[in-house]
């Protein structure tokens, strides 16, 4: 007999119970489900839920249950047939009031999900989903920045009353030709301060003194990075509108963004919300001319352009002069007007946008201002373009709102005269449109699990068979102790599943590779201990002493080999990305669970079975 503290029993029991509890939701699998949300991200409430459930009940459509989750209603179904019927009914009955998305949801009982127990997630490679690759027009971002710089340059010169002959924009720089050389120094000084991160250098030319204003290399890089970052954020916001769990929005290289939405089966809505590569512009409405006549003549008057109203498709003329762009808008949300409580959209602009708006509204109270949305899509050579075509790009413009300016305002204003749905939709459109730079969808598609359903099934079967053979071998080779090892291995897998569920890790194919390695190492730990026990027995030691010595002596080998592998796991996690990271997460967590189960769990179990007897003749090992 050797001393064996009682707390070990408690520790093992508590960890096991917790592990089983946390891993439990994984047993249930997935139900087909629908996510019903408001398109403007305002939370659904019990009334909304009742309404949706009411529609299903009225048409006698079956469903498993419904509940509110993260501001949307989640409906679970018993079959995919139920799911598709319900989807058709809901989209027909609620029109655009709700967005209905196909989804999978855990089939675990409600109470389990309610207390926060969730199954682990499977990655795109195992589960399928939607993948989009966007290309950000970083050169375009630089062009836009240069255009803005040109405006700042003009303003700076006007403010200092420096006369100039010409201001010309070249792709990445602005060239200023002054009237005379007298004010060259003053001009240089003023232009350097015209914007952050610009340099101004003088050159001489035949036409007179020339100053070249351009961004420093750092500023160029910063702007391109900024454009990419801004787009990642915008895409992330849009993905949140979809309410997809475990989305991946990732920069890829210098100018690409990868969006992966595991489990999404219906790309249409995703394409609608994500694929809208929209930019916004505020223009004044040209009220002096008749839009209907312009449409008939197919010619817009000078200084105006012909556009169409969203929804009604009626023609409208807007002035070409740009007031504010979507990149100057910081927020837009639907709410109520303070005056009369009618639906309204609150818009906030940044400083530059605010002062431009102030200047414009001072001059134009009582006139109408339009919000123009510009959709840019990349198209194939053989595809139709309803708007204007330039190379592989199709640009479509439409006016999403035209409202009368009621008073002078700057960076905060509201748009009224809308219905409730219109307000929330406009807010969504405005927010979604605040893109810094046009992005183009370069690849998209609903994808089946890339490993393929049949292949995944084969792989899982092979893994299960391999494990069964290992268990059989352990049982035959180490008899009673082998059975203990098998129990310990099983609990190791349960604990690993528990940790993966707890940390909401995403299991991918490389993750399964990590699992194989971990199980291998857990088996190894047991083999190390048992071989050491056998060695001690061969030396003629008593069974109890052999067990004790076996665990003690195997400890350093197990600890050192696991720590070595743990180092590899942690480094891979810290540096690696994507699939390498998925491998590292499972490996790291798996080493922790296998250390616990092999060193503490298995010893406790062995002590429980053989350690407490006073006299044992032979050990079943």
């Amino acid at each position, binding site marked *: 007999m050797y001393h064996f503290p009682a707390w070990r029993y408690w520790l093992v029991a508590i960890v096991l119970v917790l592990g089983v509890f946390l891993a439990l939701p994984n047993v249930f699998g997935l139900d087909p489900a629908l996510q019903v949300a408001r398109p403007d991200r305002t939370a659904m409430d019990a009334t909304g839920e009742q309404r949706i459930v009411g529609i299903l009940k009225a048409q006698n459509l079956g469903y498993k249950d419904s509940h509110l989750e993260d501001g949307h209603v989640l409906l679970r179904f018993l079959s995919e047939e139920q799911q598709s019927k319900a989807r058709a009914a809901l989209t027909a009955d609620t029109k655009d009031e709700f967005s209905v998305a196909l989804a999978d949801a855990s089939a675990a009982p409600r109470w389990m999900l309610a207390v926060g127990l969730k199954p682990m997630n499977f990655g795109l490679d195992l589960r399928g989903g939607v993948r989009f690759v966007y290309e950000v027009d970083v050169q375009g971002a630089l062009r836009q920045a240069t255009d803005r710089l040109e405006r700042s340059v003009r303003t700076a010169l006007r403010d200092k009353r420096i006369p100039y002959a010409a201001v010309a924009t070249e792709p990445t720089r602005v060239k200023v030709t002054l009237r005379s050389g007298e004010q060259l120094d003053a001009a240089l000084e003023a232009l350097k301060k015209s914007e952050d991160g610009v340099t101004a250098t003088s050159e001489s030319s035949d036409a007179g003194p020339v100053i070249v204003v351009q961004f420093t290399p750092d500023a160029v890089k910063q702007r391109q990075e900024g454009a990419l970052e801004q787009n990642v954020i915008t895409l992330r916001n849009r993905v949140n509108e979809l309410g997809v769990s475990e989305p991946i929005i990732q920069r890829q290289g210098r100018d690409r963004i990868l969006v992966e939405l595991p489990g999404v089966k219906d790309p249409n809505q995703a394409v609608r919300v994500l694929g809208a590569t929209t930019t916004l512009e505020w223009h004044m409405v040209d009220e002096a001319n008749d839009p209907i006549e312009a449409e008939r003549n197919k010619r817009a008057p000078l200084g105006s352009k012909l556009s169409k109203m969203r929804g009604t498709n009626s023609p409208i003329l807007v002035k070409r002069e740009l007031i504010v762009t979507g990149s100057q808008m910081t927020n837009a949300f639907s709410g109520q007007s303070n005056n009369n409580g009618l639906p309204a959209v609150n818009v906030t602009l940044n400083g530059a946008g605010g002062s431009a708006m102030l200047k414009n509204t001072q001059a134009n109270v009582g006139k109408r201002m339009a919000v123009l949305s510009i959709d840019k899509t990349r198209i194939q050579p053989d595809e139709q373009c309803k708007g204007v075509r330039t190379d592989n790009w199709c640009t479509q413009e439409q006016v999403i709102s035209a409202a009368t300016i009621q008073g002078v305002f700057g960076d905060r204003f509201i748009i009224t005269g809308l219905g409730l749905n219109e307000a929330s939709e406009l807010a969504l459109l405005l927010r979604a449109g605040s893109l810094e730079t046009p992005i183009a969808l370069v690849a998209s598609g609903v994808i089946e699990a890339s490993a393929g359903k049949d292949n995944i099934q084969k792989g899982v079967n092979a893994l299960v068979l391999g494990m069964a053979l290992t268990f059989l071998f352990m049982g035959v080779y180490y008899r009673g102790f082998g059975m203990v090892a098998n129990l310990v291995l099983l609990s190791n897998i349960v604990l690993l599943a528990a940790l993966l569920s707890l940390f909401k890790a995403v299991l991918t194919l490389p993750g399964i590779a990590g699992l194989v390695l971990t199980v291998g190492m857990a088996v190894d730990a047991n083999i190390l201990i048992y071989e050491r026990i056998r060695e001690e027995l061969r030396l003629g030691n008593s069974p109890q002493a052999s067990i004790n010595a076996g665990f003690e002596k195997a400890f350093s080998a197990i600890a050192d080999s696991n720590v*070595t592998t743990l180092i590899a796991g942690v480094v*891979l996690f810290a540096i690696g990305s994507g699939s390498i990271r998925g491998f590292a997460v499972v490996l790291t967590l798996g080493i922790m669970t296998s250390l616990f189960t092999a060193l503490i769990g298995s010893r406790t179990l062995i002590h429980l079975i053989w350690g407490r007897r006073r006299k044992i003749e032979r050990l079943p090992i």
Partner: protein
Amino acid sequence: MEFFHKVSAFPFMHTRRVWYAVSGTAIVASILLVIFRGLNLGIDFTGGIETEIRFSQPTPSEKVRAALSAAGMNEIQLQMAGGERSANVRLKSAKDAAGEAKLSQQMLTALQTVDPKVELRSPTEQGPQVGKDLRDDGILAMLMTLLLILIYIAFRFEKKMGAGAIFAALHDPIIIFGFFSATQITFDLSALVAVLTVIGYSLNDTVVVFDRVRDNFLSMRNAKPADVIDSAVNQTLSRTVITSGATLLVVVVLLILGGSTLQSFSAALTVGIIVGTYSSIYVAGAAALDLGLTARDLMPVQKNDPELDALP
């Protein structure tokens, strides 16, 4: 049941020149193979041509795969879309435009056996999934890992043993790369993950042997270093063989029954486990021995600082 009832006494260190020759030849051959024959890199690494296929009726992915495979297009990434009415097929790019047109034509002919009204959309060039930055990350991660492990083993054991372990850990992936080059099995992302897994296994094996070496240097004070290492390798031999055998069992089942996606992964693991077991028996200890490992290297640390042993 017991395979190793008596502790074996194979003179591993005595014959180490033979094993050096074997390993050396394998490494040199592998490096030459990779340089001159190259790896058959998967689409993950090379990028390729993506073609959209439109079917006139829902067509299951197995049929599409089978039809393309019958036409000799085994190395594809297939993703079904739109309720099996369309699919995206990724193929490695052909060398020139004429080759590409020929590939498209072959694909069309193959797919027409499944659906006579099938349509192919114009193919688009796709970049590699494992871009340059990811590859650089991977190499950096590998170097960092090896360095940290070297430090850890130097700290827990001894620096010559650390070098031996790193040598064994590098030995295995090089031979796996050689194997992939020789067989021209597609080397894809999952094969890369398998290589990482093998490094993990190999280190694990090596550390277990080294743990015994450390013990034996303390208990066999007057023995020659070669004998000490030999006894350690022999004492852990039963464990090494049984663990490797058990793991190999799982991996071979995966190789035979696991389906095409896991093929390169399980092939890399199978070779890796065999080579890894070999390297931890024959290479790691021998390398440490020839770097001049003696009892003195392990003694003082162990004696002066007993606290170290208490560390995990």
